[in-house]
């Protein structure tokens, strides 16, 4: 029963839940296998890095050396012969044998709002319907393991769950590495006093519920019990980065992004299904190169350390890491030494979860302006995430108004990513 999660630090309760989750996972996969659709869905978790603002593809995953669109960065070799990325990722380049790139995403929107919605939900915005983000889709189909919430968003809010409802909303962690004040009694309230309060509260509520027997009261009581269980769960120590030794924290980087990546790893180890880490500042209309160099200095160590650690613990096989942005940037550098919005082609980074290390799917043309071969549509990315987890991306669910909606807006998984 424990095959899906050996090496996890599990509480007893978590172990029970984990067993249930594995059972669920297996049964769905067996169904898929019967339908002949199963290749090798090995992913159990997703870590999504959301880079808001539109990250330049040419200065990161898709360098164009010697072309007029190259910009200021040089390409560097990676641990995969023949695959180059730019110099702002020196440490990550040495993990490339665990990683994959798609260089031919064909976007449709150059507006931040619309493109963000499209990339995060696979649907175009529609005025009076809210589509769920990919994280909500995943936890709708796969419950979490253990005591922690199934879906956690770090540093900014995740997209909404829309018609999938409150259960599929992300738990929001504003500041990785800082104490989440809502998971413990307020400062100044000792454990003894806090527990006394809970005891008295239970007595008051019992008395009220005995007189007025209503299902809402049972639900309210259950919500308190769940909260208290989480507050007392040993799994909460995943949030406490001070547990890690200083050298390790240093490897990820002593900044919010580094702490976020380290926290994501620890959350996945505790059984969290979907972690989204948000970072902004990629809308580089001016002075793109110093800005991207600074981004590299933050992102490179964190990503490299995360991939390295996940690979070392064996968790990478079960964890799909993906870095997305709403679009790329203009190949020609503008008069302010910046790049503007460019959706016609851009790239994304992936690793783990069954993705074959060293794979590069598709390419852009020689100036990085259009897809050259194997164009990948935005819903294909969502279908790929579902595929990695063994989720049927064409499954229909009903909205509260009774309108059937597909989990993903069509699309086909990019199967050549998988081994």
């Amino acid at each position: 029963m424990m095959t899906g999660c050996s090496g996890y630090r599990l509480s007893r309760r978590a172990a029970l839940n984990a067993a249930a989750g594995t059972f669920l996972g297996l049964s769905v996969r067996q169904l898929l296998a019967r339908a002949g659709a199963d290749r090798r869905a090995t992913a159990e978790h997703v870590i999504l890095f959301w880079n808001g603002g539109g990250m330049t593809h040419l200065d990161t995953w898709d360098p164009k050396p010697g072309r007029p669109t190259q910009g200021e960065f040089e390409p560097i070799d990676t641990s995969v012969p023949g695959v180059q990325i730019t110099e702002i990722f020196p440490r990550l380049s040495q993990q490339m044998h665990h990683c994959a790139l798609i260089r031919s995403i064909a976007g449709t929107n150059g507006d931040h709002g619309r493109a963000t919605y499209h990339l995060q939900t696979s649907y175009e915005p529609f005025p009076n319907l809210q589509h769920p983000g990919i994280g909500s889709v995943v936890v709708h189909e796969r419950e979490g393991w253990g005591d922690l919430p199934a879906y956690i968003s770090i540093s900014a809010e995740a997209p909404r769950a829309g018609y999938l409802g409150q259960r599929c909303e992300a738990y929001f962690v504003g500041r990785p590495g800082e104490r989440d004040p809502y998971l413990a009694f307020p400062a100044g309230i000792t454990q003894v006093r806090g527990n006394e309060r809970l005891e008295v509260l239970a007595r008051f509520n019992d008395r009220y519920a005995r007189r007025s027997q209503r299902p809402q009261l049972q639900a309210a009581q259950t919500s308190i019990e769940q909260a208290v269980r989480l507050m007392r769960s040993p799994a909460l120590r995943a949030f406490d980065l001070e547990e890690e030794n200083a050298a390790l924290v240093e490897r990820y980087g002593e900044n919010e992004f580094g702490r976020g990546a380290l926290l994501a790893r620890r959350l996945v180890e505790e059984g969290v299904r979907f972690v989204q880490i948000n970072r902004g500042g990629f809308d580089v209309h001016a002075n793109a190169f110093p800005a991207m160099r600074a981004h590299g200095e933050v992102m490179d160590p964190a990503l490299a350390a995360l991939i390295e650690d996940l690979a070392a613990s064996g968790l990478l096989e079960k964890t799909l890491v993906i870095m997305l942005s709403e679009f790329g940037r203009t190949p020609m550098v503008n008069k302010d030494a910046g790049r503007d919005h460019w959706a016609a082609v851009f790239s994304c980074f992936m690793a783990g979860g069954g993705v074959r290390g060293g794979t590069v799917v598709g390419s852009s043309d020689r100036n990085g302006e259009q897809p050259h071969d194997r164009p990948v549509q935005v819903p294909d990315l969502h279908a790929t995430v579902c595929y990695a987890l063994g989720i049927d991306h064409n499954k229909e669910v009903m909205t509260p108004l009774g309108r059937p909606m597909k989990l993903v807006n069509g699309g086909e998984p990019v199967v050549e990513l998988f081994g």
Partner: protein
Amino acid sequence: MVDRTVRARAGKRLIAAAMVVAVGGAWGWAAAAAPRATQREAGAQPGPAGQPPAIAQALDAVLAAENQGRKLVEAPLVDDLAFLRRVTVDLIGRIPTVEEIDAYLALPAEVRREQTIDRLLADPRFADRWSVFFADMLRIRSGAAGGEQFLAFVHAAVEQDMPYDEMCRRLLAANGRPSAVPEVGWVLGDNANPMALAGATAQVFLGVRIACAECHDHPFDKWTREQFYGLAAYFGKTQRVESALTQRVYTTEAEQTTVLWPPEDVARGGPRAPMPPAFPFELVSAEGRQPGYIERLAALRAAQAAATQKAREETVVEDLLADADRALEAGQTDGAPQGAGLDLLDVQAEARRDAQRLNVQADLYRPSMLRQELASLLTDPRNLQFARNLVNRLWHELLGRGFVEPVDDFSDNNPPSHPKTLDYLAEEFVASGYQFRAIVRAIVSSRAYQRAQLYDVPEAQRQGSEAAFVAAPLRRMLAEALYDSIVQAGHLFSEKWGPGENVKTVRQLVQIPVEGEQPLAPLDSGGERMRGSMPAQAMVVDASGYDLETAVEVDFDAVLAAAAEELKLEQMQAASREELEAEMSMAGESAMRRYVERFVEVEIDDNPRFASAMRMASPAAPSHFLRIFGQPAREALGDHRDHSANMRQALLMLNGKLTHEASRVGTLEPIYELVCGRQPDLAAAVRYAYREILTRDPTDEELAEGLAIVQRQDAPRKGMADLRWVLFNCHEFRFLP
């Protein structure tokens, strides 16, 4: 900490005048500039002492007749204190204060309820609380283009008793910029998309779902695609324009319609012609004698028109403004806040400028003729469904269940539980001149509203009684009312500690430049992060990370007063753009600045205040207290409030700063003397806490239990904080009696 802007209530009349100017008086809301008393006269007349108003009595009679022959266990009326708590929460969105309880009990029993209803209808918070109702219904999003102004418009409409039909006509027909025509937010909210607006208009104003007919004839209902297209055609010439230069958003009317028939998938490349607009809903026959309620409305409106006409003859726009000047001066002498005067002068100047500009741009921003036609058909008194929809939603809000559920699904397959009662209320609403306060008064004065809950009867019987409105269901407070009730009873609307009483050390994140220079200012802990890619507003309560309970009050008057302020508009546009263009500003600056982040210990005087949840930008950020307690996102149609319990609610209540600070006994609170004074009276303190938090006195057992809790800790002040924490957290607090 909490940023509370000075309200400029004295500016009411002036703003009203500016709005009349802004719309060119097309719909003649001139009455709004008149004192409210004249509006009130049209409302329900209170009955003689001890008797509910006639409408309420008649309502109960119709309901009783419809329940005739059903075997029902009827609940008695709620007792006086329970009624006070229920009606105060329902009408002004918070529990009553101890002073209000004392004043209520001092009234003669036979007029207590009626006088309390009148007091609450006149309370400034009435408009705050019912803006929440309309914001839910109209899906108003402060973060959307024009949303902030739209919310302020609805708030002003409720505050000043704008007739409901007029409010709807205005927002359906409006064109222009949100800064000058705040009600244009309705059209902008759906991006002026004709198909979206057609579906939303039917569902929101009539409670009828025809949006499915956009793509196919309705499978279970009577609506056809052709009818849907006919309705959409009223919106076919409406265009949303965003100026790339000024980043201003406005709507205007094009020459050509975008709604063509047959639909693209049917035409398959063949010819398509402009779809003629057609109103798909039936009006009652105009032949013969009008129904009585329509005649009453006509008589009322004729009288109002005569009064308005008289006022018009004597008043032109410049006079209105001069009038406002006088009001301003009068306001200043009778104690209006200092500083408000300057704002008002600005408003006046701006209103004048706006009037001039409007002449130039009148063509661009003229109201839509097509949508004016739609608006008059929709709000025609012969279209009783328009009134039914509103009273059904209101009944749902006040009694926990509509005659039709869900409230936006009137259909032949889903008939009302009490059609005669529903129609009676709808007709009275029409006859009252669509007076919102009048219909609220009628409902809360009725026996149906004042029923107690049923205990100790079998489940099926209880449900039957609740469905027949002869017993009250268990209802949880709205998120906003729960929040405000804690703030109120916890004395957190103002500071409850003296300076220096709460000095403490907190961990804070600072950025230190790599070059090893001085630390920069502490990071704004949360504002940016909470925003993410979604339009939502959040600010920081304090430095210790309680970001999910923040409250920033929006000054609705100022939003409207700023009507003509170009600069302000551009700032707001910039702000909303900033939210959409996630982090654009961070790109240039922070990404280039190289730094490491370190936690440092900082000393602060933590003396928090909270603003009203009813006056915040809304919806709040997705993980905010209000959203977790069910405030809807207001994006999708049918996105109703969710009152169900979840774990994150419990975490916020058990561990959050709001409940914690509300529970602590502040030195400036009335209860402080009873707990910590020279002659403490702990029994009196326990009684006070029960009254203040649960609006009732404790039983003898509860008093003894409360005393034991208070005395369990080493200091009674801590024990009292424990008792109050339990009272705030217990079921009885959040569920209405």
